[in-house]
């Protein structure tokens, strides 16, 4: 069963279509990466999932419940950080969480302290939010998302404005939420290396439409079209591989390492040719795109 299913979800603002007939599925246990350039429709989609924006057409099914009919039961099980974290600047971090907890129906006071400790803000909990740094605000925003012990967390750009250590902390927190608490996570981010390390499945949006969706391993496996070879002597190998009709191109990556665009199924043939011609092959491995290259290839 899907935890979240979007069916032909569409949003138009006047003549502009921000999200166009989007079909998407997030399964329980996923860490789902939601990618796209600025203006691709990620945040609009997230806002429709959280019923901040009314879809023009299509539906959002959360835990099998159509949000158009009964949003509250489903939303009670969801935590979210949408774009920039938002707070009452005249309240302390703890009081901000208190307001949110009471708005949702109330939580034990200990839960506020737990969640503050979890994001590393326990010692600054009583300080007014207006004095918080960008990193602290981001962490408090994540604390807001985790407050009601959600089973599903939506994080829109959670690492915005964070330094590398902050980014690593958030990554570790998301990983811990998933592994320890069994929380399903949908994360939208421009940090593609983070997404690649963190997520098991992704969807890429382009101009409001779904460009591609699936498991990262499967998507990137399809991109294997080159082979990296560490050989000696490299000049001789270069000459031999250039002579192959099915070698679409070859280049030197660095000393002794070549990158040949070969069909993966013919790697063995290339290896045999090199060895039989007196070239020593130290290493031969398929090279696939990383997520960033794959993402850019889809734009």
């Amino acid at each position, binding site marked *: 069963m899907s935890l979240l299913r979007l069916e032909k979800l569409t949003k138009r603002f006047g003549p502009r279509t921000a999200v166009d007939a989007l079909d998407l599925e997030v399964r329980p246990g996923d860490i789902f990466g939601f990618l796209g350039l600025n203006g691709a429709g990620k945040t609009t989609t997230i*806002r429709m999932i*959280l*019923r*901040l*924006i*009314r879809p023009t057409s299509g539906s959002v099914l959360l835990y099998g419940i159509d949000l158009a009919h009964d*949003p*509250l*039961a489903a*939303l*009670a099980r*969801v*935590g*979210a950080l*949408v*774009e*920039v*974290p*938002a*707070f*009452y*600047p*005249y*309240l302390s971090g703890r*009081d901000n969480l208190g*307001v*949110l907890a*009471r*708005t*949702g*129906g109330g939580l034990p006071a200990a839960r506020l302290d737990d969640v503050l400790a979890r994001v590393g803000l326990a010692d600054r909990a009583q300080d007014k939010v207006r004095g918080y740094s960008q990193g602290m605000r981001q962490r408090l925003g994540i604390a*807001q998302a985790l407050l*009601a012990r959600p089973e599903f967390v939506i994080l829109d750009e959670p690492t915005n404005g964070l330094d590398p250590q902050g980014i690593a902390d958030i990554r570790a927190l998301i990983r811990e939420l998933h592994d320890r608490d069994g929380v399903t996570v949908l994360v939208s981010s421009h940090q593609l290396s983070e997404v690649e390390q963190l997520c098991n499945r992704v969807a890429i949006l382009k101009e409001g439409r779904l460009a591609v969706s699936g498991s990262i391993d499967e998507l990137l496996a399809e991109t294997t079209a080159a082979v990296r070879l560490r050989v000696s002597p490299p000049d001789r190998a270069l000459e031999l591989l250039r002579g192959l009709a099915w070698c679409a191109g070859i280049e030197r990556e660095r000393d002794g390492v070549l990158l040949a665009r070969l069909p993966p199924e013919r790697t063995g043939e290339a290896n045999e040719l090199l060895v039989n011609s007196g070239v020593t092959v130290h290493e031969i491995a398929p090279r696939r795109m990383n997520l960033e290259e794959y993402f850019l290839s889809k734009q």
Partner: protein
Amino acid sequence: MPKRIFHLTGIELYKLAHQPLAYAVFALALAVTALTALVSAPSATSGYHALARAWHYGTQAGALALLLLGSLSMSSETTQGTLRLLLTRPIHRGELYLAKACALLLVAGLLQAAIVGGGAALVGVARGYGDVVDPQYHKYVYFTNAEMMRYSLQAAALGLLSLMAVALLGLAVSTLVENAGVAVALAILLYVPLGMVPELARLSGIWIDMRLHAGRTADLLGVLARTLGLWVLNPHVEYPFEALQQLGEGIANARSRLRWENVRWEILVPATYMVVTSAVGVLHFRRKDVLV
């Protein structure tokens, strides 16, 4: 539903209690009340004239301050992003709107109580109360102390209704406009300059007749001014206190201004504002896309 609105109203009041602006609203209204209570009309024979002036200007200042508070109520949450945060929690939008409305109505009640109580105490200490008598022939009593007390309570109650209508007008504008600054400007524009339109219509009618010898323009524009004046909110905030002020000066005709046939408009118009602005606000808020 009423229980949830009650619960959310408590949260709204908690937020208001932590905002310096809420205290500034009270400080402004009380300062104006105190100032006018202490400096007004020493020639009047009773403290009721000073009381009416203090309440009049205090309520006017309170209305403006409340308009500011109301027009920031939703728009500031939109601008700082906390509205989208609240709406991701399992709450009905209509309930949130009504909770904000209830909180503002309570603030309006407290504000009016502070203006009325503060003004009455100050005038009592500084001038004292008593019958409103003829300034030359002191034995001639225009209105007894008991009568004036009744009129004062009546004016205070009518003033409260108008203040509530002003607060809800601010809230509705605050829902229609996302930017906090624009919401405040629009609310003030709807309240202050529109309040001058009936008088401007009346004066322009007289001016046209004088310049162009048109004859009937003043009559036509006079009718327009009266109709407009009936449905513009600003004069209704002032009306009960102006009437009380005239009573405090011993103007006998002013008694009719607080009779039912005139007072019913002072109830009907603010009540209509409260119902219409709340209906527009709730309906808009329930369908609104939160983009900020």
